[in-house]
C-alpha cells in the first residue's frame, strides 16, 4: 500500500517538475490572465454598479475576489479538455501505458495534478496578488475558510483531471474525440463560472450548471476560498465536490476497463 502510494507520489512530483520547465509559458499565461482579469473587472464592476451596488450577494469587492481567484485557478484546472492521453488513445500508444504496472487513470490524474500544482506558483498566486494590488480583493478572516479553501482547491484540480480523463478514454469508442473536447471546452468554461459567476445565471440555468461537474472545477473552489456562503455553505460545496469526484472517478475506472477490452492495436 505504501509502495503504491509512493509510485503515484513520484508521478505527481514528475508532473510538477515537467511543468516547471516551461517558465516562459507560465509568464505568457500570467500576462493573459491579468489582461482578461482587468477586462472582467471593467464589465462585472459596471454590472454590479448598474444593479445599484449589490447584485445577488456580490458587491464590487467580492466580485473582484471572484475575478482574481478564478483567473488564478485558470492555469491549474483544465478547461480546454485537451490532454496528452487523448492523442495516445487515438494513435494507439496507450497500449504501452497499459503495459506499465500502474493504474492508467490514477497515473494520468497524478501527473496532471502535479503540473497543476506547479502552475499555482508562477501563475495562480501572482494572478491573485496582482489583482489584489491593482484592484483590491476581499479575503475571509476566519482560518476555517483557508483550510476548506485548500481542500476545495485540491479537489477542483483532481475533479478537473478526472473529468478530462473521461474525454480521453471515450476515444476507445469514438477514435476522434475533438468534437467532445470542444463541447467540454465550451460547457466547462461557461457552466464552471469562468466568465460570469453562476449565481448571476437565471434559476433554470443554475440548475443545469449544478447538474454537471463543471462548477466543482472552478466556481465551488472560488466560492469556498472567498468565504461567500459562510462555513456551512463552504462545507456543502466541498461535499458536492467529493460526490462529483467519486462519480467521475468511478465512471473513468469503468470506461478504462471496458475500453481496454476494445482496444485494437493496428500495425506490427
Amino acid at each position, binding site marked *: 500500500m505504501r509502495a503504491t502510494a509512493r509510485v503515484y507520489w513520484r508521478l505527481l512530483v514528475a508532473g510538477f517538475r515537467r511543468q516547471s520547465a*516551461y517558465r*516562459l*509559458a507560465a*509568464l*505568457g*499565461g500570467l*500576462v*493573459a490572465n*491579468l*489582461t*482578461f482579469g*482587468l*477586462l472582467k*473587472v*471593467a*464589465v*462585472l*464592476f*459596471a*454590472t454590479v454598479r*448598474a*444593479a445599484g451596488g449589490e*447584485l*445577488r450577494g456580490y458587491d464590487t469587492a467580492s466580485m473582484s475576489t471572484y475575478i482574481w481567484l478564478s483567473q488564478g485557478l485558470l492555469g491549474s484546472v483544465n478547461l480546454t479538455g485537451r490532454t496528452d492521453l487523448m492523442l495516445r488513445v487515438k494513435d494507439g500508444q496507450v497500449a504501452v501505458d497499459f503495459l506499465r504496472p500502474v493504474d492508467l487513470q490514477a497515473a494520468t490524474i497524478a501527473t496532471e495534478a502535479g503540473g497543476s500544482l506547479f502552475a499555482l506558483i508562477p501563475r495562480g498566486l501572482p494572478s491573485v496578488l496582482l489583482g489584489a494590488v491593482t484592484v483590491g480583493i476581499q479575503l475571509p478572516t476566519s482560518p476555517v475558510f483557508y483550510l476548506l479553501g485548500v481542500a476545495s482547491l485540491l479537489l477542483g484540480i483532481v475533479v478537473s483531471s478526472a473529468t478530462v480523463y473521461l474525454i480521453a478514454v471515450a476515444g476507445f469508442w469514438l477514435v*476522434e474525440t475533438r*468534437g467532445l473536447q*470542444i*463541447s467540454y471546452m*465550451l460547457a466547462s*468554461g*461557461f457552466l464552471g463560472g469562468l*466568465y*460570469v459567476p453562476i449565481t*448571476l*445565471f*437565471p434559476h433554470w*440555468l443554475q440548475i443545469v450548471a449544478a447538474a454537471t461537474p463543471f462548477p466543482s472545477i472552478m466556481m465551488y473552489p472560488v466560492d469556498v476560498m472567498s468565504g461567500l456562503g459562510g462555513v456551512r455553505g463552504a462545507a456543502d460545496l466541498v461535499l458536492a465536490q467529493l460526490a462529483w469526484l467519486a462519480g467521475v472517478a468511478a465512471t473513468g475506472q469503468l470506461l478504462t476497463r471496458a475500453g481496454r477490452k476494445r482496444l485494437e492495436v493496428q500495425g506490427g
Partner: protein
Amino acid sequence: MASASTFDKGAVQATGLRERLRPYRAVLASRARSQRAYRTSFALDLGSSLLVGLVELAEVWVIFSNVTALGGMHFNQILLVFGMADLAFSLADLSFGHLDTLPDFLRAGTLDAFYLRPQPILLQLITSDISLRRLARAAVGAAAMGIGLATAGVSWGPRTVALLVIGLASGYATFAAMFVWAAGLQFFLLDGAEMTNAFVYGGRYAASQPASVWSRPLKLIFGFFFPMAFTAYLPAVTMLGLPGPDWLPTWLGWCAPAAAVWSWVMGLLCWRWGLRHYQGGGG
C-alpha cells in the same frame, strides 16, 4: 496613342497580378476542398464553431439578465457591438487565425521550407490555410448584428450604411493585423505564445464590450494601442448617436480606418523584426 499604351500596360499588369496570385488561389482552393471532403466531420466542425459563437453571446445575455443597461447601452445596442465585433473577428480568424500555429512551424523547423519558394513568407503563411468552419461563428455575429440593427433604433440612411461598411471592413483589417502582430512576436516568445492571446483573444473579448466601462489604462491599451474600441463599439456609438465616454468622443467612429492602418503598420513592423531575428531551424 499615349492613352492606348497606358491601357495596354494596365491590362498587362492585371494579367501579371493574376498570374502571380494563381499559386495562392490554388492552395486556398485545395484547403477549402479538403475541409469539405469529410462531410460529417465538416458538419461537426461547423456545429462546434456555431456553439462557440452562441456561448459567447450567452455570456453577454447572462449579464443583461441582471441589469437593463451597461455602460450606457441596452441589450439591443450591445447586440450591435457584439455582432459587429464577432463578425469581423470570425472572418479575420477564418483567413488569418492559422498564423497562431507559427510556433509549431518554428519548433519543428518546418518554416525553413517556406524560404525555398520565391514568394513572401507572410503571404505564403496567410494563404496556407483557411478555416471554413468559422463561417458558422460569423453567422452568429451577423445574426446578432442584424437583430441589433433592426431593434436598436438605428436611423437608416447613407450615413449609417457608410459607417457599417467602414466599421466592418476596418474591424476585419484590425483583427487580421492582430494575428500578424502576434505572429511577429512568436519568433521571440515560442513557448510564451499565450502572451499574445492577451491582445488577440483578449482583444476580441474587449471589442465586444462597451468601452465606456473601461478604466483609463484599459482605454489606453484597448482603445488606442491595440485599437479594439474602433472595431465595433465606436462605429456603433457613432451610428446610434450616443454620447461617447471620456477620451472616446462620438465622432471617433469615423476614424476606424486609421485604427486599421495603425494596426497593420505595427503588425508588419513586428513581423519584419521577428523574421530578421529568425535564424533558421538548423536543418
